């Protein structure tokens, strides 16, 4: 069925778009906000008409159960629990959004710009007036499970509420205990400056009906304990799906496309598929390579870059070997079994290929090797690299234009940086060299055009 703006799918996609747009600090929205806005209104109205109250009742029940079974409202701040909570807060990458650049830890205030206005992350320090100092651990858990603040206000899905709902009571309590111990900051929250009608939180009922499934992570008894631990971290606190699930402006963000990858709107980086080895899946990676990539930021197969560098920097580098390995085991199990791309490389214009080959020899081979073999692990191989071969040419083009350092991590504290080439290569040259690396050495990428390159020159850099 051709998706329409009125379909529930499109509504979810649009809200997912909002959510993804707001994921990243200082996100800008330089594109078709009018279309999105119109779509959101239409879809929102349609969805509101069909809202069932069942999920709300279910939420209330879950919250009641939690309250009655809870050991009490005060946080248990014994050191080992606080330490565990700090670790889990890292796993959830709370700091990335709840701390502004040069701001105080967890005092919020990070501006998240969207086509609908600006959202500001709240202060989650234990300050009684401006933070969450008056919250009980029950209230905190209820927020994590139901996506509502203690007074019942619906939380905008810039907060990964659809993922955090999977977090266990025990883990939620530990995170709360940790947050009780950070320095209280007396800084009021910024008011969101969303435009009408996006400032109407009731619109979120529609989103929640379609997208929010309240409930703790349910282990798959047919899988190993390790796999289930990985699934819990990836699907819950890690909230990987916020970027790695396809977002289609005109609908089509179905559950079956979970982790199938997609362009991250506004940021203009392509989050690779985690379900197809043809487009970024990790099925044929060794567990060690996945662990290295996530934890150190570099591996024998490639390095993290773009928004993923932030995830490794703030979150994954701090994860234990066991947890990272569990995530790797789960991620490795996600791809379908159809394997990598095969067959001959795509034909290219001979002149373009020759120009690209010359530029490559001149500027790239010194680090990435004459045959794209790289120098492990600091200079990633380009031959057989899924980031280069992906259907979307966004990432290889942007890496050539913008360069980048992998994140400085405990395992790789002094990373080697890739120079930006945007200032020395014109669109034709950049397109030629990207075409070359996508089609040389048996690579299976498609050629790119100078127009593709030009379109990404203004991609936001944060």
């Amino acid at each position, binding site marked *: 069925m051709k998706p329409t703006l009125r379909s529930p799918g499109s509504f979810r996609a649009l809200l997912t778009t909002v959510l993804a747009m707001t994921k990243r600090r200082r996100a800008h929205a330089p594109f078709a906000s009018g279309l999105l806005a119109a779509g959101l209104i239409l879809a929102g109205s349609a969805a509101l008409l069909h809202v069932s109250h069942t999920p709300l009742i279910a939420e209330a029940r879950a919250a009641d159960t939690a309250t009655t079974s809870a050991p009490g409202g005060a946080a248990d701040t014994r050191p080992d629990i606080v330490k565990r909570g700090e670790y889990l807060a890292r796993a959830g990458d709370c700091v990335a959004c709840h701390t502004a*650049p*040069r701001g105080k830890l967890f005092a919020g205030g990070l501006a998240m710009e969207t086509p609908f206005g600006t959202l500001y992350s709240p202060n989650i320090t234990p300050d009684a007036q401006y933070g969450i100092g008056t919250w009980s651990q029950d209230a905190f858990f209820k927020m994590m499970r139901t996506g509502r603040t203690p007074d019942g206000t619906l939380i905008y899905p810039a907060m990964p509420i659809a993922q955090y709902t999977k977090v266990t009571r025990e883990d939620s309590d530990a995170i709360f205990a940790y947050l009780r111990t950070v320095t209280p900051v007396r800084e009021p929250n910024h008011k969101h400056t969303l435009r009408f009608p996006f400032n109407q939180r009731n619109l979120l009922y529609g989103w929640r009906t379609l997208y929010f499934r309240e409930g703790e992570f349910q282990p798959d008894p047919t899988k190993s304990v390790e796999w289930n631990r990985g699934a819990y971290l990836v699907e819950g606190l890690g909230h990987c799906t916020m970027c790695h699930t396809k977002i289609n402006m005109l609908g089509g963000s179905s559950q079956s496309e979970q982790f199938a990858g997609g362009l991250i709107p506004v940021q203009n980086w392509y989050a690779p598929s985690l379900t197809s080895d043809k487009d970024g899946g990790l099925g044929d990676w060794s567990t060690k390579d996945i662990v290295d990539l996530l934890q150190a930021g570099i591996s024998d197969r490639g390095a993290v870059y773009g928004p993923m*560098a*932030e995830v*490794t*920097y703030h979150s994954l580098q701090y994860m234990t070997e066991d947890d990272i390995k569990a995530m790797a085991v789960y991620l490795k199990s996600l791809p379908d079994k159809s394997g990598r791309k095969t067959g001959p490389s795509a034909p290219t214009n001979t002149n373009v290929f020759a120009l690209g080959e010359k530029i490559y020899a001149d500027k790239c081979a010194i*680090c990435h090797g004459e045959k794209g073999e790289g*120098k*492990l692990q*600091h200079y990633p191989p380009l031959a057989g690299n899924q980031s280069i071969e992906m259907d979307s040419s966004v990432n290889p083009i942007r890496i050539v234009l*913008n*360069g*980048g*350092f*992998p*994140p*400085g991590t405990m395992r790789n*504290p*002094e*990373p*080697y*940086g*890739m*120079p*930006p*080439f*945007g*200032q*020395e290569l014109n669109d034709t040259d950049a397109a030629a060299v990207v075409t070359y690396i996508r089609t040389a050495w048996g690579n299976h990428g498609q050629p790119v055009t100078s127009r593709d390159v030009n379109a990404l020159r203004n991609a*936001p*850099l*944060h």
Partner: protein
Amino acid sequence: MHRRTIGSSVLLVLYVMWSGVALAATDASSAMPSAMDERVRACTSCHGVQGQGLNNDYFPRIAGKPAEYLFNQLTAFRDGGRTYPPMGYLLAFLPDDYLRKISQYFADLQPPYPNADQSAVAPAVLAAGQRLVTQGDPARKIPACIACHGARMTGTQPGIPGLLGLHASYIAGQMGTWRSGTRHALAPDCMHSIAVKLSDKDITAVSSWLARQPRPADPRPAPASGERLPLACGSQPQ
């Protein structure tokens, strides 16, 4: 004396032997170069292999500036005190310890200066620039540049940068951003206080004169001084 010479020779021989061993070990253990010049290719492709800057107002000389000054700039780009997206993007996920090492690496380099600016500027403008740099303008409470940036204008340890070897338009651009408040330093932001008192004419005069000055015999920043600065600067705590 004689004994010391023998001692030095022994040390030298040992050093040469050790170097040989070290080199051999490097060759055998890993093909990966570990030197800083390899790590900072992302910096030197724009700022020059020696950090000397390119013939382009966007990519200034960074070599030889005090390490603490460079570190303050890197963290400002990373955390928001200075806004230049390509720099902020590159530095976003680099920890302080590494940024200090990068700063020290470029602080220790002293490549030659570019050729001094030869463009035609009226002598009166240059004279006004020289006056502001060397004497300031007491009537307007503008201190002389050299009061903080050193008599040789090569900066002062630990946090004040040199003013030479830069393009006139780069200097003027920075003073413009200090004045408009888009470039910040650690509070109190003394350069902002000064820049708001400068007219466009002042900025042209100062930047034109500075860009014409030759490399001094000693291009290193002046050592930290106990002398009180004309106004308080967060980057140079006293």
